[in-house]
């Protein structure tokens, strides 16, 4: 029996029609970029944004690290292209409440803040909900100790003038990185980017980090540039100690350049301002969104891709894609490349106007199904649901079954099935077959 893992019987796999319609959840730069690209190709796009303004997390940014443009202006242009195009519809103050069905027959229920509901039937769903930031409270009073976003704002406001904080001139700035989110690149990128600008304004800059993370396109160059311009870098093992002085903050950090631990000296960096990277965290609302979309979450409650070995923008469900900071906190360049990857994938999926399921495919014998929900609960791709026939609630009949009758039984959606066979192996009624 075990020799016949696949039944050789071929089943007719009907293509599911895919209309050129996409639902994008999240109106940040990722969602907007995907929308703009898809709309250009004639896809009807609906953006659902929970807030009242577009832009998301990028609204806190003013400078790119890798090009001179102003982020806000660039984003303004992006927003205006959306509002021009006829293929894009933006719903603000809106949330996805339900998503039923599978690829080809998704039914999305959107509720707007005024309580109105709207049902959409998109062929693909793109999740680009971003993440949230929380200020780091390194010093209880917050005096002379600001977040990276606030520094971004100060820089934007001062432009060609010398930097000032609360009317006082700022001459020395120390950046402290890696107090939280030890594993992401944003803090390094923002700090070096801001350091270079500050240096040009004549400030003296130090960057204190556990590990600098420069593995983003062009960052090594910028880092070298910063060093050449005289930005000081210190690495730490033990977090630096902050204390107020008469006219600033002293940041004490052990100088790690000496190899022998006992020879290391404590360096005191007297600073007018200390900049600390905010904590990035998964949006708590992601949990509910994942329940609605039947998606997986990973560490810290962030959205998790299907399989990192394959395409990182694929979710565990066919037709649902993920991009940007909802997966993990990213810099704009990384997010945009994910947005483009999603566009590629969606384009490939919608290209022929239909999706033809590929073997192997699992199928439930409705006559044997006991509706125990085992397969529904265990399917890693949420491809199985229980099919009801109207209001009838009946068990599978044992022998005779009218072909036209839909009994209540589990049903595997061929277009959503990945053919792994987990359900086949778990079914207590042995009612599922994997067809070749």
């Amino acid at each position, binding site marked *: *029996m*075990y*020799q016949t*893992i*696949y039944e050789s019987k071929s089943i007719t796999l009907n293509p599911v029609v895919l209309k050129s319609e996409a639902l994008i959840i999240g109106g940040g730069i990722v969602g907007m970029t995907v929308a703009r690209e898809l709309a250009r190709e004639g896809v009807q796009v609906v953006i659902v944004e929970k807030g009242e303004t577009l832009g998301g997390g990028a609204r806190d940014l003013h400078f790119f690290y890798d090009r001179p443009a102003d982020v806000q202006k660039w984003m303004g242009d992006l927003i205006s292209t959306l509002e021009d195009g006829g293929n894009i519809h933006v719903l603000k103050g809106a949330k996805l409440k339900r998503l039923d069905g599978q690829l080809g027959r998704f039914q999305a229920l959107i509720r707007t803040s005024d309580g109105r509901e709207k049902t959409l039937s998109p062929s693909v769903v793109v999740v680009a909900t971003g993440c949230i930031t929380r200020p780091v409270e390194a010093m209880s009073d917050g005096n002379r100790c600001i977040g990276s976003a606030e520094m971004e704002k100060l820089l934007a406001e001062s432009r060609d003038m010398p930097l000032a904080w609360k009317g006082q001139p700022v001459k020395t700035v120390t950046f402290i990185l890696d107090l939280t989110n030890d594993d992401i690149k944003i803090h390094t990128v923002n700090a070096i980017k801001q350091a270079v600008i500050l240096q040009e304004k004549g400030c003296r800059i130090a960057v204190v980090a556990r590990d600098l993370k420069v593995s983003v396109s062009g960052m090594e160059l910028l880092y070298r540039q910063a060093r050449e311009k005289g930005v000081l870098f210190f690495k730490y093992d033990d977090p630096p100690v902050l204390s107020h002085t008469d006219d600033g903050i002293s940041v004490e950090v052990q100088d790690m350049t000496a190899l022998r631990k006992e020879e290391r000296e404590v360096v005191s960096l007297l600073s007018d301002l200390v900049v600390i990277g905010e904590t990035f965290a998964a949006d708590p609302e992601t949990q509910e969104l994942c329940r609605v979309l039947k998606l*997986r979450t990973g560490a810290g409650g962030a959205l998790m891709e*299907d*399989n990192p*070995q*394959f395409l990182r923008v694929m979710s*565990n469900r066919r037709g649902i894609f993920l991009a940007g900071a909802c997966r993990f906190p990213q810099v704009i360049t990384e997010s945009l490349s994910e947005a483009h990857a999603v566009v590629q994938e969606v384009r490939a999926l919608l290209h022929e106007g239909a999706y033809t399921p590929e073997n*192997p495919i699992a199928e439930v014998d409705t006559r044997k199904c006991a509706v125990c929900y085992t397969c529904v609960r*265990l399917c*890693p*791709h949420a491809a199985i649901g229980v099919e009801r026939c109207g209001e009838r609630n009946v068990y599978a009949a044992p022998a005779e079954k009218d072909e036209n009758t839909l009994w209540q039984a589990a049903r595997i959606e061929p277009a959503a099935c*990945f*053919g*792994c*066979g*987990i359900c*086949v*192996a*778990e079914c207590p009624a042995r009612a599922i077959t*994997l067809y070749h």
Partner: protein
Amino acid sequence: MGRADEKQPEIQGEPMSPFEPKIVAFCCEQSGVPAAEMAKTLKLKMPNHLELVPVPCSGRIETLYLLKALEGGADGVVVFACHEENCRYLQGNVRLKSRVGYAKQIMGKIGLEQERLEIFHLATNSGVKFAEFLIQKADQLEQLGPNPGKIA
């Protein structure tokens, strides 16, 4: 390699055991199958009585298949699955692990040795490991002797 020859002195006078264990090896198509192909291409030494059963994912293997293989004549059953947290279908090898655990409980009640069933995690390019593990398993099963539960 002359494995049988090396053994002979230990048996001391007794005729060489005619027992050659039969192994049923379930191979995940994401890892075990390519590894098996590599082993074949490299013409690596593998046990004589070997039945390879390809599966789309190790999560496809029912607990019942593990028992049926033993009942149907296997002296040992091996599952070649992907490394943990590396399943193409996310949960397949995790489900397999609990099923193998359950099958081992049943084997204990039947009176079969736990060694007759084992998961081996490997990658697509582990052709050498694949063959080595099977040879090692065959040796182990030879020591254990024939599966007393098989009906064949």
